[in-house]
């Protein structure tokens, strides 16, 4: 039925040129049969009358010019889905690797998805309590948000992501919750850590896991996150589940993309990454969100490691330009022994302002957050000045801010890996810190909140 060709004329990197092909479809899936009978899969990257350029997911070793057979399957890459995908582990191409049976699909979905119509979206506003003060208090996560973690080698992003997955909840609601985990070129240990975390908390039955490890085919990494997101879309929008997607490590994904681009001899953009990296990443990150009239949602926490801890490197840079904020981990805080080492100043949750405040968290929350940011920023600046000139040459106020910054790191950011703080707890830690500062310094806070929380508590504590 399918047309079969033995006309491979060139093999270069992960790419094959197949000749005499009259009408391959763009992005069509092909199956390559090697001489030893083994099969690989690939997709058409460019097609013209008489020639198709095919990218092979599992690598081209052993594929011979004019020998191997290429079969064009007439459809784009698909993921078979059904409710039975829950609790299962797949490889990076969507084949089960947990020894369980194959999936009897309800549907086969194009892994590239389609853009959500902006008018069909529902704005994410539901506060997710992660139990982590640096996130809940200052860089609040909401349901349907895409909020990446910018990490670097040796920092505890895996532990932080696992803690979020463990503790995340929407207050006051009983919901169908699911985790989709996509491992992209990470080590067996790291993947295993996540899987056993999910197992320990019993979340494994509500999880779908796709694994492409460091020693798995590099090009396969390009489809793995799309598999994961397709599964997530099915769970969220067909099965009404609240889905948390964790993809790690997006840096490995981008490197795979760069490799393919280089093999195609495309004009490279910054640092050798293809010029379309932004668009490519956007087609994945934008698959987070909520849709009007649907119960489910997709919240994405992609993790990436910043090469050389550099936030302006194209991978974090383009990610930040697409996602709705970022949580940035910082090596200095890690050295100070602070967990989670979240640098709150460059971190950001763009959806925070609609997810907090009266009726959602607490009416004083926006003001407290803004004031903590401003005060901590000032403290850090004063600290810098102090390291140059010595504390003695600072004003009294600056010295106070330095003390504030230190306390802030130790009592607000710092917390246990298994410590699950309520939002009230987080906010009252915030007020305890703000009470270190004189009232007129708290310009970001409206009078009514000062009266209720600053003045009141002061008088009540002096009564004690």
């Amino acid at each position, binding site marked *: 039925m399918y047309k079969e060709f033995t006309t491979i004329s060139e093999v270069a990197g992960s790419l094959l040129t197949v000749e005499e092909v009259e009408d391959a479809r763009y992005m069509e899936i092909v199956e390559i049969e090697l001489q030893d009978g083994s099969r690989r899969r690939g997709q058409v990257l460019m097609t013209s009358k008489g020639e198709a350029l095919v990218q092979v997911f599992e690598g081209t070793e052993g594929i011979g010019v004019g020998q191997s057979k290429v079969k064009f399957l007439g459809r784009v890459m698909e993921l078979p889905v059904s409710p039975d995908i829950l609790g299962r582990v797949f490889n990076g191409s969507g084949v089960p690797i947990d020894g369980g049976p194959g999936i009897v699909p309800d549907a086969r979905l194009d892994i590239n998805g389609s853009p959500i119509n902006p008018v069909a979206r529902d704005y994410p506003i539901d506060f997710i309590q992660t139990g982590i003060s640096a996130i809940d208090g200052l860089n609040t996560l909401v349901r349907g948000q895409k909020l990446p973690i910018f990490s670097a080698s040796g920092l505890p992003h895996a532990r932080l992501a696992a803690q979020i997955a463990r503790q995340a909840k929407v207050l006051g609601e009983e919901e169908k919750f699911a985790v989709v985990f996509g491992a992209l070129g990470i080590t067996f240990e790291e993947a295993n850590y996540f899987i056993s975390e999910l197992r320990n908390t019993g979340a494994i039955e509500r999880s779908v896991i796709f694994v492409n490890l460091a020693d798995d085919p590099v090009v396969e990494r390009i489809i793995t996150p799309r598999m994961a997101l397709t599964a997530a879309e099915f769970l969220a929008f067909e099965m009404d589940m609240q889905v948390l997607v964790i993809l790690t490590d997006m840096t490995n994904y981008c490197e795979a993309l760069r490799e393919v681009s280089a093999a195609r001899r495309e*004009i490279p953009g910054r640092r050798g990454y293809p010029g379309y990296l932004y668009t490519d990443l956007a087609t994945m990150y934008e698959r987070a969100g909520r849709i009007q009239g649907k119960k489910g949602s997709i919240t994405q926490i992609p993790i990436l490691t910043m090469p050389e801890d550099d936030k302006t490197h194209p991978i974090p840079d383009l990610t930040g330009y697409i996602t709705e904020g970022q949580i940035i981990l910082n090596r200095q805080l890690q050295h100070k022994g602070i967990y989670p080492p979240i640098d709150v100043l460059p971190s950001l949750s763009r959806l925070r302002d609609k997810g907090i405040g009266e009726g959602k968290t607490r009416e004083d929350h926006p003001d407290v957050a803004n004031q903590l940011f*401003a005060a901590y920023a000032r403290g850090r600046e004063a600290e810098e000045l102090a390291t140059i000139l010595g504390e003695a040459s600072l004003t009294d106020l600056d010295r106070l801010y330095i003390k504030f910054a230190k306390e802030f790191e130790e009592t607000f950011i710092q917390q246990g890996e298994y410590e699950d703080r309520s939002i009230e707890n987080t906010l009252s830690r915030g007020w305890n810190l703000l009470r270190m500062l004189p009232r007129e310094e708290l310009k970001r806070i409206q009078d009514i909140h000062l009266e209720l929380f600053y003045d009141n508590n002061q008088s009540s504590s002096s009564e004690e």
Partner: protein
Amino acid sequence: MLEGSTKGVILSVNGPVVVAIGLPGAKMYDLVKVGEDKLVGEIIGLSQDKATIQVYEETAGIRPGEPVESTYEPLSVELGPGLIGSIFDGTQRPLEVIREISGDFIARGVEVPALDRSKKWDFHPLVEVGEEVEPGDILGEVPETTAISHRVMVPPDVRGKIREIKEGSFTVEEVIAIVDQGGEERPLTLMQRWPVRTPRPYKRKVNLDEPLITGQRVIDTFFPIAKGGVACIPGPFGSGKTVVQHQLAKWSDADVIVFIGCGERGNEMTDVLMEFPELVDPYTGEPLMKRTVLIANTSNMPVAAREASVYTGITIAEYFRDMGYRVALMADSTSRWAEAMREISGRLEEMPGEEGFPAYLGSRIASFYERAGKVIALGKEDRTGSLTVVGSVSPPGGDLSEPVTQNTLRVVQVFWGLEDRLAYQRHFPAINWLISYSLYLPHLEKFWRENVAPDFSANRNLAMQILQQEAELEEIVRLVGVESLSFRERFVLEIARSIREDFLQQSAFQEVDTFSSLRKQYLMLKLIITYYQEGLKALERGLSLRDILSIPAREKIGRAKYIPEEKIETLEELIEEVQEEIANKLKGEVESNV
């Protein structure tokens, strides 16, 4: 139009770029339908019998041999009632209608007209039979929304005597007038079409002398933009470009807003869609959506349509300008548009220029911004209309030396430079006052003097000096510590801080603070300047810095931004309070010395 069209066939597919043969008579920029799914595309290259096409929809699954059909018409927009309040994709497909047809996700090959064909509009004629009309003359009006009366104009290529003019209720396709053009009958409808890549004609441009009032203090007072002017707002991710653009779309004193979400986030468009119908225009009292047109080609939507989106948007904006309206257009982000150009150019294997952008990047950017301006529109009336354009720029790594920023700075007159350091401190809008500029300042002096206050500019300039001085003093503090500064200098630092925190910082999300009238801006700054001037005098007369800094009114200066517009006279009282308190301290000082 489609008569005589012969079908060509696809030769190759490479992402959004398709090559076809066998399209006789094909012209550059003609619109074509590609493949069995009839995906919309545009011819962007011709050589011998081959046409290179950029396709506005996802091309996965398309193959060589499928048919290609030309419409022999360039990519055009439909201009008529029904634009306002709508949201379109980059090629003006109405997203609401697409949703009705294809559901929550955008399917391919959905063919829908931009303007509703069945909706009837009330048309009130303003010309009579026998009248001579020329391009741009107003035939009549349609109350399109409660905020905008749609002026139906004679299209640019029509001139002659009115033979027939109707009154009543019409769809956009029904004939409402017939013009006798040298013996030839030209039926006119409520709708006209215009090719997006061609600027709409006008009589002439005129000087800019009025500010676009945005309600944003750092913009209006420090770096204003004129109506008809051009501004850019570059900054790294998360520094506040979109928030500023949204603020402009919400609070500017324009009649019509065109907002282009070009290659940015889906949720940001949703945000506008949900918020604008609820928010009220401070000038007209009408919901903001009733003056807004949205173009959304988000980052995950096809890249070729993203390239087209800025043209679609600006053509619609020009159309309302031609009616005599004050139009403001926001493009967020022009970098994504430039990247779309780069992506297509790369697929065409054109010779790349800087950072892989095509060599024509600079000229495309320049001609886009050139479409802004204040003009005398076509038509006998000599109506004045303006089109203000504000583009966000998203430089990689926040580095302003990159080609898109540099080419943009060459043409714009206002530069609002956002800085991540300020954003980290949550100093919003994170517009760095030391690097930003507005070349319109001298042209607007007269307006401030006549419409706000004679000393508006003087206060502004003094505040700017104080901020400059702060930067110098901070340098000294960094080297030798605060001890080395005189009390006068320390007072300057305190005032600078007050200007930054109590004036420049403005929360977009706080109900009162989100918008400041010019009068409020003036009084707020005057308050700080009064404190400065009185304080300096008192210092000279021997009052201690501590005394000056401890006047009770100082805390009130910090909260002045929360004073609602209705209670603006409190600010005037506060100015007096500052004067009195310092005078009292001085008196106390003098007495205790006696």
